[in-house]
């Protein structure tokens, strides 16, 4: 038996020792993808086919990915973090979790994408943009009627008691974007008063940012507050969803990408980084039912995408609302005034 213990012990030691060492192999890329599963899979498969580099992809929400980076700070396991709202990317940049890289592709990118990079001293870059809005179920609300919601203010209507869903800003970048948008649009105290009034109509704060619109698609709820491109995805796949850009104006996200500081495959990471900014890679979105606006000026915007020029967009202050202090402050105020109601 001593022999058996010893053999299993040695085997365990070998397992522990070697399994770690495999991480350092070349020809691999560990991708943390914080967007929709479909586009995540399509990007990693296409890159793998074109370069022969084996892509290991995990899909998590942007909050979860940020948390993972933070937890792995001592020894990063990932190479690239692609997708998800820009704020956690900026926060990671501020904390030095991601590394500086100026891609040769930068001069092909839209202003907002470059501005995102500049805000973070080139520790991140914009890969797509999408405006915040909401969608409602057209079986439950007639889009032709006068009462159909068109503005943020309409959502406070008593008719929608327990009929609206939105994500919890503590777990979802989408919902944090909404919080920051309302603060910039209305002023902080007014925004919290609005959210408190809206809380009466909210049935559930979900953990995933796009879950509310799926619930609206099946009729579990009437209205879901989400990024408009997520609502479009539902509508395209056959759900009775009407997409709305709020009349008062709205904020937007710059979906971002960062290189993880100290990742195991830095060269492949840069290869992916440059590749994913090319027009060809960015046009893959439409194939995977992701209707964000791509950041490369030469990439065609999918027809179904909400046109950013037609939407009243606020001048979103990414630097301020992406900083950890402001973020923590707003989130704890939300916890106190809304979350614990």
């Amino acid at each position, binding site marked *: *038996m*001593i*022999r*058996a*213990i*010893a053999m*299993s*012990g*040695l085997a*365990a*030691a*070998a*397992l*522990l*020792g*070697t*399994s*770690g*060492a495999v*991480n350092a192999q070349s020809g691999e890329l*560990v*991708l*943390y993808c914080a967007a929709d*599963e479909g586009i995540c*899979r399509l990007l990693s498969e296409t890159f793998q086919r074109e370069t022969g580099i084996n892509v*290991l*992809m*995990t899909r*998590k*929400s942007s*909050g979860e990915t940020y*948390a*993972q980076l*933070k*937890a*792995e700070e*001592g*020894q990063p*396991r990932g190479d690239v973090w692609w997708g998800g709202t820009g704020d956690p990317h900026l926060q990671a940049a501020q904390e030095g979790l991601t590394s500086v890289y100026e891609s040769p592709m930068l001069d092909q990118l839209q202003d907002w994408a470059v501005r995102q990079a500049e805000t973070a001293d080139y520790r991140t870059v914009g890969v797509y943009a999408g405006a915040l809005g909401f969608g409602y179920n057209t079986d439950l609300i007639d889009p032709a009627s006068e009462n159909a919601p068109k503005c943020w203010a309409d959502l406070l209507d008593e008719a929608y008691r327990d009929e609206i869903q939105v994500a*919890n*800003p*503590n*777990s979802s970048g989408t919902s944090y974007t909404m919080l920051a948008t309302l603060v910039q649009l209305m002023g902080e105290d007014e925004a919290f008063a609005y959210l408190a009034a809206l809380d009466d109509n909210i*049935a*559930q*704060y979900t*953990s995933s940012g*796009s*879950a509310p619109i*799926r*619930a609206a*698609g*099946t*009729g*579990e*709820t009437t209205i879901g507050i989400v990024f408009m491109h997520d609502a479009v995805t539902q509508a395209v796949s056959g759900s009775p969803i009407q997409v709305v850009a709020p009349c008062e104006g709205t904020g937007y996200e710059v979906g971002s990408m960062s290189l993880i500081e100290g990742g195991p495959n830095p060269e492949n990471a840069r290869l992916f980084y440059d590749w994913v900014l090319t027009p060809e890679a960015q046009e893959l979105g439409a194939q995977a039912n992701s209707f964000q606006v791509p950041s490369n000026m030469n990439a065609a915007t999918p027809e179904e995408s909400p046109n950013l020029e037609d939407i009243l967009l606020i001048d979103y202050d990414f630097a301020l609302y992406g900083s950890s202090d402001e*973020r923590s402050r707003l*989130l704890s105020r939300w916890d106190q005034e809304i979350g*614990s*109601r």
Partner: protein
Amino acid sequence: MRQALTLVNRLGGLWLLVGLAAVLVLPWYKLPPPDTGGGASLLGSALTEALAGRWWLLPPVLAMLAFAGLRLGRGERWPAHAAVPWLAGAAAILYLGQAFGIGLRGPAIDGIAQAMPAAALGQPGLGVGGFALGIALTGIIADSLAMRGFCRGERFAANAVIFVITLLTLFVFFPILRLGSAALFTPDGVFQPGLFVTRFTAPDLWGLDCLVGDRKCGVVINTLILGILSGLCSTALGLALALIVARTGFRFKGALRAISILPIITPPFVVGVAIIVLFGRTGVVTGWLDLLFDIPRTRWVYGLPGILLAQVLAFAPITFLVLLGTVEAINPTLEEASKTLGAKPFATFRTVTWPLLRPGLAAAFLLAFIESLADFGNPIVLGGGYDVLSIRIFFAVVGARYDLGNAAVLAIILLTLTLSAFWLQTRWLGKKSYVTVTGKSDAGLSAPLPDPLKAAVYLAVIPWILFTLGVYAIVVIGGFVTDVARFDLAPTLRHLSTAFAFEFGQFGLQLYGSAWDSLQTTVLVSAIAAPLTTAIGILTAYLIARQNFAGKGAFEFGTMLSFAIPGTVVGVSYVAAFNVPPVDITGTMAILVICFMFRNMPVGMRAGIAALSQIDRSMEEASQTMGANGFATLRTVVLPLIRPAIFTSMVYAFVTAMTAVSAVIFLVSARHNMATAYIMGRVENGEYPLAIAYSAVLMIIMIVCIAIIQLLVGRRQLGRRSEMHKPPAALPAE
């Protein structure tokens, strides 16, 4: 083989050889360390690294060389020398000191870098050599203690005890301590002990507003309310089921037993999803009620009622198994005596049967209560605005504000609640005597239930059966129709092919489905974890039941602790402890296997202790008198007699590894993703059909594997007696 063993012993024992290999030949680190400039180190072993400037690696090398010298001077019984335990102990302390003192980015204390400049470069995690030395030192300490009378000088037992203790320390206590210390730091890593009090007394934890006002209660209160309600309802339903099976002429008893096993092999989330599909606002049942009776569609299922429903569905079978044992063990002569003395059936039930049921009821309640506290899958799917601790811990780690310290405080609260319930349970069952099974004749017939009680029992059980059938009908159908949530029942294999598409192309079999990776990892991890879990569980049971050694009580408590810790807490503590050197194993498959081993071993251990207590020691004594050593006795006498316990443990370990989610969700990585983590992502995204299809596949795999395990373990042969059927052990704290 025997000759090889003798040769190894003549050379000074296995541990000496392993230790020498560890310091002289094997690579010490898992990755090549930063270059010290002191000459390239050829093998990367401790000796060459020490010579290249990492002088802190020298003590273990010298200790192993000293042992080798002792072997040459003293012969085969060298570990008996008085200096050996001291020397090995000192080497172990220095070994641990360097491992924890010098991290990846440099030493923890500034002084070290001045004494040894190479330390400033830092060192990566331990590799094969590093771990092998730890094993060798542990073995040498165990051998030397055995030669000084530990475990009555039984070398095998001494080694087993010391190794199990070392492993428990490393994989149970160390992570919990690491997590506990995180509770004292701010999110930025500043040490601030006062913060613990602030976090612990936060108003959103303990608020009682929901009882008096219309605001929400604190999360701890929520958790307790849910736990108590869930415990009460599950116990009541479990009792009703047990009474039906044991005390009525109900016709479908076999079916009832079969249904009651289902929740144990059901992956998490799928019950919650099925409940939404049935009772959500656009649910199937809700739709009928609206159509037939004009009952308005509401969203009642999101929140406390929904979670409660899902938990009662899952836990009632466990309480049923516990209570069935209690009901069947009641000696019918007691009830007959009551009847003979003129008591009416209901009076007999109230004054005789009920008091005898009480310990079983308490055990069942506490079990369901503990399960409810630890439950993660149901609240996250059905929670709505109802916040419980396991979910709050999850979001404290993965939410937008990463706060390990806060997660640690919440985890400590949850752990305290769970341990208190465990303690109550052992107290309650330990003290009183409810013996009714005696050697005296119990030839009486058990009394049938009084009629009103019978009606109540049927009233409780029949809706439960319908409900369970409904839920599993959704599971069976949901994965193979277009969209069960929108009631689009056109049959399709689309979901299955999204998950499990494959083709036979020019390169042979090619797997394209998105779920293949996670399925392969899950089956592999479960298949590795199940025998290892069983081995360590049964070995521990043997040590506790058959060996006497100092500190046995603490040893037993330690093994149970890993069972009591809720899964979310285990996950967070493993991340906190094993993401940095020296034991740097996050992102590997090993951490998944290890996590399952130590979480699930107590079940095998309990089953093993129970089985061993039925077997007279005289058979083992006979074996030892005839010259067999401890290991040979265990292998040839004990193990064949406790096959049912081995089977229980294997099945349990395998099934929990397949369905566990709360701990695993923190430990999966891009390379090693698990099925439950994949399913959770699909559920979060609202892709219910895919989640249901995958769950159905997992359940089929589990049923097949249980049958295979049954075949492999086989049955024990006890004379001509037929084997008693044993109920499986309880589920773990998820």
